[in-house]
């Protein structure tokens, strides 16, 4: 789910001025590239689902949620019909709950008509071990029975620990396991960027 370090580890994550991110790693995707990747994913979703008529986009908090909203807006622009979107919190379904202190819950917000018979596209910022997606599949199971479930991610950094693959990828980013991928989004962090850094501090917890 959320990215690795506590936000504002060096105070820069919240800085809205340009290029504040040195020290947190190098930029691998800039704002315009993120926008292009999302536009392309939007078109791929339209193509694969033949017009995105029965599609529901569910973002995984925190950063999957604004991504789902952006994808929905993009598809709406192209196809001319609104695409329902929402959020799917997976905290209570995680397999590592007992490894860390109890964490705050995110919000699950599903469009009022439910997900039965629809094509649900899960949206997340980074795909890493695949455990988040597994938890999301379990969470969906308790919400209803979609016709199909697909997965869209902004960044696929590899190192899967489960047999899970994305259907739509913004960027394939080969990484080493000690590296940290951070996605910053305007809605949450005040700017758009994808950063690749090294887990420098021991307190960073599980990187992704």
């Amino acid at each position, binding site marked *: 789910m959320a990215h690795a370090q506590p936000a504002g580890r060096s105070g820069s994550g919240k800085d809205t001025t340009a290029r504040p991110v040195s020290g947190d790693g190098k930029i691998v995707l800039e704002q315009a590239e993120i926008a292009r990747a999302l536009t392309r994913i939007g078109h791929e979703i339209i193509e694969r689902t033949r017009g995105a008529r029965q599609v529901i986009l569910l*973002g995984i908090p925190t950063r999957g*949620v604004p991504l789902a909203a952006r994808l929905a807006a993009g598809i709406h622009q192209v196809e001319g019909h609104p695409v329902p979107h*929402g959020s799917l919190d997976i905290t209570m*379904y995680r397999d590592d709950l007992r490894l860390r202190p109890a964490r705050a819950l*995110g919000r*699950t917000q599903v469009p009022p008509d439910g997900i039965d018979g629809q094509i649900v596209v899960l949206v997340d910022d980074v795909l890493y071990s695949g455990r988040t997606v597994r938890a999301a599949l379990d969470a969906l199971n308790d919400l209803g029975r979609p016709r199909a479930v697909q997965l869209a991610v902004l960044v696929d950094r590899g190192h899967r620990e489960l047999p899970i693959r994305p259907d739509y990828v913004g960027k394939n980013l080969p990484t080493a396991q000690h590296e940290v991928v951070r996605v910053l989004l305007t*809605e949450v962090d005040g700017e758009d960027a994808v950063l690749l850094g090294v887990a420098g501090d021991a307190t960073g917890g599980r990187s992704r």
Partner: protein
Amino acid sequence: MNRHLISAADLSRDDALRVLDTADELARISDRPIKKLPTLRGRTVVNLFFEDSTRTRISFEAAAKRLSADVINFSAKGSSVAKGESLKDTALTLEAMGADAVVIRHNASGAPHRLAEWVRGSVINAGDGAHEHPTQALLDAFTIRRRFGRSSNGPGPGEPGGAAGQPGRGGTLDGLRVTIVGDILHSRVARSNVILLHTLGAEVLLVAPPTLLPVAVDTWPCSVGYDLDAALPKSDVVMMLRIQLERMNAAFFPSVREYSRRYGLDSARMAQLPERAIVMHPGPMNRGVEIAAGVADSPRSTVVEQVANGVSVRMAVLYLLLGGAEGDQ
């Protein structure tokens, strides 16, 4: 959060808000067709009830089951306690069975505190004598927060102004005036509520006959009055307490009828309340004594909501105490 929840004083303002925010999210589960989460799978919650209770025990049981915990119900009647087993031996038995949490109700004040020294799991106080009942205070605060629109359940994504998927922090109870009326002396609900509501920023006023106020009430973080009619127009929330005849070992007031006249909430008194004010009661109600039937069934009354909210709040408490790593702080 502490490992145990024995007193409302165990909760800092942040802890309390965390419980309420978590409960806000969990309350949404009860609108779903499948009202169950796998979070506490494989963990055992023991309901240890030495005193009669319907709603609290059922509420805890429902909360634990919705989180997929295994629930063992233990009531003193028909158990070895009836044969004279001590609390400590009972505790050791539970310990041997591997209880991850013990929800205890006991007629002796302080029993949960003692129990916490003997078991490794979390101890949750579900009411001890006339001492405390912290989850009731939490569900009351939760109900107040919802009724006054301060919970974190704002508009969601796709709705105007929605904070997309961000469950945001709900507000405190700053500035709300809460009047608690009735048998304060025997009420664990009153004590826990005074502490918690004060923590959350509300101004609490106790109204009761002098004989039904505890001796050290002047040390509590609240004010005290004796005139219900004077207090009502200045109250956002009125919480009516049950007269606990079963705990009364002396004559605290001349007659039930006189008590009811001076301290009961009837329709005429309810009309003195400000427009948005709500009427609460922790139950079980003595209709016609501290609260008139017409008041209890009015739209201002939150009695039924309080019961429903109890499950969400207790789920939040169980999740925050048991959901994470063991021994975390």
